[in-house]
């Protein structure tokens, strides 16, 4: 058994989907001849041809809308958007059409569409390619929003998303494409309903997703060396949120740090915190804490970008503050 990258896992998932179901096809900018902006779709054009691996013009609204229409007409499109910032050009289609038509039509139509969207910061590409806007999409009823943070999810979430009759947005964090892991041969599918505890602990819960999960796990290592056992929960599914798993961890550790690359104001982290406040209030033994992206357009300079993103040390510091507070004034 050998390790594969997150990128390769994504590609294997796409390849499997294309082989399994003739209704599946790919659309997006530079996914064909170029091989994909992040090389995820490299080689697929040669194998599956131009009919099913469709390079599109830079018309996000048209090709995302076309994905919705094709889904309405019985296809199973997988549409790639190069970065979440570009997805804003298709926001009308995603929010006004994909998210509304099933309900607005009284259940006459479903939109079995998958959108793959690269997201997140860390690549030194500044303020128009680095943001984490998945929290916006998680705001929208009618959408399902996934954030694979581990290679296994990168490999298998796609199949689950295609099997879902709803528009599913898969946010792939750009810093994860090169991570490697061995796949468990016993695992051939994953659910897209539940959050997952990636590391058990009793002292404090760290909630994260995407690259935030990786950083939360790194923070847990730091804390472990100090005798603080952090539980790390991979949210995985940003909509609908798996509140039950979140609350279960809160009931266990009673201390919460939420990690979110998105901006704090009006964010997914705010939503999670509020759900805990609503449903898990009496389990809390300390104030809720968040480690979020700084409220700035992402800067280019590495030291500034690093400072703008959640980092393991920041997460550990927040957790330490809760789990081992400084003693009054003895």
């Amino acid at each position, binding site marked *: 058994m050998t390790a594969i990258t997150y990128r390769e896992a994504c590609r294997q998932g796409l390849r499997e989907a294309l082989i399994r179901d003739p209704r599946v096809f790919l659309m997006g900018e530079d996914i064909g001849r170029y091989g994909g902006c992040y090389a995820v779709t490299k080689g697929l054009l040669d194998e599956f041809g131009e009919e099913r691996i469709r390079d599109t013009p830079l018309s996000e609204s048209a090709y995302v809308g076309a994905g919705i229409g094709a889904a309405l007409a019985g296809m199973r499109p997988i549409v790639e958007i190069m970065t979440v910032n570009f997805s804003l050009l298709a926001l009308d289609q995603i929010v006004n059409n994909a998210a509304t038509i099933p309900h607005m039509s009284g259940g006459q139509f479903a939109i079995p569409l998958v959108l793959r969207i690269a997201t997140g910061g860390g690549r030194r590409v500044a303020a128009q390619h680095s943001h984490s806007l998945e929290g916006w999409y998680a705001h929208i009823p009618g959408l399902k929003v996934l954030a694979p943070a581990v290679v296994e999810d990168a490999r298998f979430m796609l199949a689950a998303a295609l099997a879902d009759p709803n528009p599913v947005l898969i946010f792939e964090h750009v810093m994860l494409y090169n991570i490697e892991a061995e796949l468990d041969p016993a695992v051939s599918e994953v659910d897209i309903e539940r959050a997952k505890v990636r590391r058990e602990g009793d002292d404090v819960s760290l909630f994260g997703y995407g690259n935030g999960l990786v950083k939360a796990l790194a923070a847990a290592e*730091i804390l472990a060396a*100090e005798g603080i056992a952090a539980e790390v929960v991979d949210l995985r599914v940003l909509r609908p949120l798996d509140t039950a798993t979140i609350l279960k961890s809160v009931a266990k550790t*009673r201390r919460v740090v939420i990690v979110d690359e998105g901006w704090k104001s009006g964010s997914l982290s705010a939503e999670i915190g509020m759900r805990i406040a609503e449903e898990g*209030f*009496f*389990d*809390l*033994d*300390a*104030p809720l804490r968040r480690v979020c992206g700084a409220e700035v357009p992402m800067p280019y300079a590495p030291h500034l970008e*690093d*400072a703008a993103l959640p*980092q393991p*040390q*920041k997460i*550990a*510091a927040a957790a*330490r*503050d*809760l789990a*081992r*507070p*400084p*003693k*009054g*004034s*003895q």
Partner: protein
Amino acid sequence: MSDFLMPALGADMEAGTVVEWRVEPGDRVRKGDIVAVVETQKGAIEVEIFDEGVVSEIVVPVGTKVPVGTLLARIGERVAPQPAAAPAAPPPPAPVVTTPRPVAAPAAPPPSVTVPAHAKVSPAARRRAAELGIDLAAIAGSGVDGAVTLADVEAMMARVAAVPAAAPTPARRTGFDPALMRRAIAAAMARSKREIPHYYLSHTIDLARARAWLEARNAQQTVTGRLLPAVLLLKASALALREVPQLNGTYVDEAFRPGEGIHVGWAISLRGGGLLAPAIRDTDKRPLPDLMAAMRDLVARTRSGGLRSSELTSPTITVTSLGDRGADSVVGIITPPQVALIGFGTIAVRPWIADGQVAPRPLVTASLAADHRASDGHLGALLLNAIARLLQEPETL
């Protein structure tokens, strides 16, 4: 910066000798760490620290005898910043009081460990305290911004679960403050006396048969296999409670709730003064050797601070034996929300009339303090009688 002082390790202790330092300047210490060994009249006692930081100076060298309260060592730098490759955010600055004090006020007191009445309390701690009927004002917070946490409440419950006159032992994670502890006990006992209409009964029991049986049995055992008389008293009490279950349980919300099982809280004195009464689960179901082992284990763990909070919060009744301290009998105060406390005095050879003859016999006075809301004297008397009867048949215990 804080000071580590010669602790009072018993009410009668006036001074102690540092016989060993377990730390050196530069060492990081955490709450609960053993930092020194101090010789007292009762022997060498390991001394814990209840602060965090780095030892900056050892003031009293080994071999020096100093009065209680003397500065032994200085602790600095409460929380060191984590070494970080990336620039880490500085720790939040300590709150600085900038409000000018009224001119007429006396000099500002040094920062106090006491917590103001409106101190912050975590939601979990508030809920637990309400369940347990604990006065939050008596608890020092160890949480963020000095908030009272769940662990603080449970530690306090452990303390108040001890029999009257108990002094605290620190729970892990939580600071130890004798004055605060005393206040907590005061609150719990005052509540007991205020709310619980106690009635008291006592009964003198002939232990001749029990002692003879015990001696015969112990003669065949190795030292570690021997039983102490206390274990017979404990087991007899537990079995008697099977017959009078109305005294085993709690009184909550104006109703008696029978205990789910008989879990006797066994009062154990602490070397540093005070005592705790952790539960021995299913006391009535355990064979004597098992019970003896459980008692030894509890004593050891109580004195080393290794108790589980469940052991401190689950007793359904308390049994205390003050016999080895020379008390003839006990008139106890019930630990709320329990409804009874059984006490045993000294086992002493005294004149006893049996079969019309005055004879020297080992006697013990068993006493009961019980909650009149939950039971009447009739039941209390039945319980004491059952204990007396069971002790006449030691082989059945």
